[in-house]
């Protein structure tokens, strides 16, 4: 066998005493697509950061064609042909495509004093054309749609002599069609002899595009296999460390469905959704499915009064809710567990107790002052009800694991005793055990009479938890399915834009 392009030897890295990587070794061959899989916190991001020179490892080496890569130096690493596309979009939103492509490795003239703008512009146009994208190179990239931004980032890698392209969750914010375009591009890279290290949570993509797959778990290297030797279940087992059987199991313990508690009529916001109408009844869980960017979160935010809407009505408990008034929505029994836990759900540096009581603080007062005993009582009750694992109620929320943080957000809203609970991606970034707990909790709340609207991008989750499924497509309601009988194919058929064939299965 030929020498590998990249040889990673016994990398170690720890942050504040926690091992992010322990003795990880890995080979990447020339011209292969090598997938890297693992749950959140398995060490994928750390490995990528070390490979691309953003951080240094504590021990171990990385060799490119037998010669060590300089540690902790992005420039030198890129010069050697190792280029990374990071998880969060690494474009400069205020700069145009030309600048975005060449910042850090500008083409120069006049002994390097001045930029060769004409040449950079020419190359940019040529590259974008090669990617089949029609992008105005003079427009600030921040004004382009997400997919085009991703293309600009790809073009950036193409603009350099690239040997290894590292892609960290490149499809996280792309639609299904855009994903297919991107995967096609990955194959194109491979056919040109470029190696790709492909990191993704979406296993379908891994099976579609990868040659080999490496699995990390808790910072350790579990195994590297040829993709044809593994199947879906086995890959999940390697990632999770045990059978993931409990993942999909439908809860068909139908709870008694009561009267309508939330009625939405013709809700419209010109830039994100149109004419959304539906009802929620006590005791039912309604799944809201759709692709990322279909406008689901926007509807949830508008319902709850975070954002304004242009027309339509929201009626809760027979009362019409005013536009853009969170306090009024809360008063009428609504609660929203937002999508972005870290930015919208929690005040990370503040204690667990303050986070749990934040939404109901004004009801815990005595003569205008917060009653400590009543707050304590509430917090203890929520911690034990949701079995939140914490070192104490006064420790900062940021010290808890993702799953427990999410439980705090849920608990904070349950404390307000809502009748309508809106959950936006309630299990994103949560480990398998906590996920199952949250699913049980949702069903349990429903059986106690809660009306739940659950947004999720994970089809198994939608299918297993919902009584009814609403599907959104490009800002509109595309259809409604019965939870007990719906299949993944049916949901996808409604969610995908009409002109394209369904090629993604789950």
């Amino acid at each position: 066998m030929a020498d590998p392009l990249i040889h990673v030897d016994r990398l170690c890295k720890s942050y504040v005493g926690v091992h992010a990587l322990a003795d990880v070794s890995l080979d990447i061959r020339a011209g292969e697509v090598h997938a890297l899989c693992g749950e959140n916190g398995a060490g994928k991001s750390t490995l990528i950061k070390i490979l691309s020179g953003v951080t240094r490892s504590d021990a171990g080496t990385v060799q490119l064609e037998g010669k060590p890569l300089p540690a902790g130096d992005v420039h030198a690493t890129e010069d050697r042909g190792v280029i990374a596309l990071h998880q969060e979009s690494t474009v400069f939103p205020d700069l145009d495509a030309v600048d975005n492509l060449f910042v850090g490795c500008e083409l120069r003239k006049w002994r390097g004093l001045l930029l060769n703008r004409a040449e950079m512009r020419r190359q940019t146009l040529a590259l974008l054309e090669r990617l089949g994208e029609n992008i105005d190179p003079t427009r600030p990239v921040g004004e382009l749609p997400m997919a085009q931004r991703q293309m600009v980032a790809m073009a950036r890698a193409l603009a350099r002599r690239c040997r290894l392209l590292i892609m960290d969750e490149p499809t996280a914010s792309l639609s299904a069609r855009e994903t297919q375009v991107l995967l096609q591009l990955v194959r194109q890279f491979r056919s040109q002899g470029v190696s790709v290290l492909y990191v993704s949570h979406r296993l379908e993509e891994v099976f579609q595009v990868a040659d080999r797959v490496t699995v990390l778990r808790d910072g350790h290297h579990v195994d590297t296999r040829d993709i044809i030797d593994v199947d879906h279940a086995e890959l999940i087992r390697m990632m999770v460390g045990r059978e993931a059987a409990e993942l999909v199991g439908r809860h068909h313990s139908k709870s008694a469905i009561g009267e309508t508690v939330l009625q939405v009529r013709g809700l419209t916001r010109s830039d994100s959704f149109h004419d959304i109408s539906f009802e929620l009844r006590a005791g039912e869980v309604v799944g809201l499915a759709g692709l990322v960017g279909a406008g689901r979160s926007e509807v949830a935010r508008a319902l709850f009064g975070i954002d304004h809407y242009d027309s339509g009505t929201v009626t809760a408990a027979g009362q019409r809710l005013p536009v853009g008034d969170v306090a009024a929505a809360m008063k009428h029994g609504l609660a929203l567990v937002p999508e972005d836990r870290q930015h919208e759900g929690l005040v990370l540096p503040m204690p667990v107790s303050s986070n749990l009581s934040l939404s109901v603080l004004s009801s815990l007062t005595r003569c205008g002052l917060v009653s400590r005993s009543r707050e304590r009582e509430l917090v203890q009750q929520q911690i034990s009800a949701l079995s939140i694992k914490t070192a104490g109620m006064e420790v900062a929320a940021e010290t808890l694991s993702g799953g427990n943080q999410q439980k705090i957000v849920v608990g904070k809203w349950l404390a307000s005793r809502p009748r309508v609970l809106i959950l936006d991606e309630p299990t994103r970034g949560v480990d398998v055990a906590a996920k199952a707990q949250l699913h049980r909790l949702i069903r349990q709340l429903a059986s106690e009479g809660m009306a739940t609207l659950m947004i999720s991008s994970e089809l198994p989750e939608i299918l297993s938890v919902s009584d009814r499924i609403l599907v959104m497509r490009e800002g509109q309601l595309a259809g409604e399915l019965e939870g007990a009988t719906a299949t993944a194919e049916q949901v996808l058929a409604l969610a995908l834009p009409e002109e394209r064939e369904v090629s993604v299965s789950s």
Partner: protein
Amino acid sequence: MSSLTDIAIRVLRQREVGLLLLIIVVTAIVSTVDPGFLAVGNLKDILVRSAPTAIVACGVMLVVVTGEIDISVGSLMALLAALMGLLISRHEWQLSMWVGIPAVLLCGTLIGLLTGTLVTLGKVPSIIVTLGLLTALRGATTLLMRGENIDGLPEGLQSLAKSGIGGLPLSVWTAMGVLMFTGVIITHTALGRRLFALGSSAYAAKMTGLSETRLKLFAFAYTGFLTALATVVDVPRLPKIESGIGNGFELLVVTCVVVGGVAISGGRGRLVGVMLAVVLLTMVRPVLTFLDVGEAGEKWTKAIQGLFILLAVITDTVVSRRPTGSARGPVPVKPSSHLESEGAPA
């Protein structure tokens, strides 16, 4: 009706167009009241008054572009003026101009570097560092001058600063040079593009391997150098050096940068806009004089300055709330560590 507002919004989006229109309108009004406003002498006066502001604004603009701010330039100017006086005045140390002036320039650059070091390596927010320096440097100036004014700068320097070359004083020529130089840096060098890149997204800059420390150090040092340069070419124009020099100058410069359309969160802004803002804000005082509001008018200049900033930021908000065309849609962009609180449309 709606198309009219659309047009208005599109015009206001181009800050340069709005500023130019405002300058033209104001000039037209004032010159109908008193045609003397358009006399060569007066226009030259406006040019001379705007020169130091223009020079320093080039530096502060780059600082703001990287996402920082510098409100110490007024006090720095005073300190450097005092230093220059001490070094080369014939009543003081009587050093040669050729030693004294480079020393002043060096000193300005070093203080700029110090500011930059405190911001980048000391991780103290730039608003606090420069607020502290604003007082500390002013205090140092008064201490240095022992409560007396300094005069007796070399004749050659004074005449260059006053009458200058080809009918225009030295400061105006310097401003033009600095302007062109800064323009080239911004559009034609890697350094300039990287400054904008850093301000646009510190995260992406880190991932691209740009050195935040070096870039910000440059911006602050350049501002320090330009402040020294402005001091050297403009202060000798005055009959004597007083400790009150540059009082409120920092505010004027920041006003010009903000009114000129540079985003306070960094990453966006054009030199042309800043220069138009410099001209517009320098015009305020002469305009008040020509409108014959006399002494009373002078007292209103600060209020008008403040009003301009408010107008600029309010148009920014109003304009960005009404997206025309396919501007920033509902794409979820993670808030980075920017200054600006650009919340979702509430």
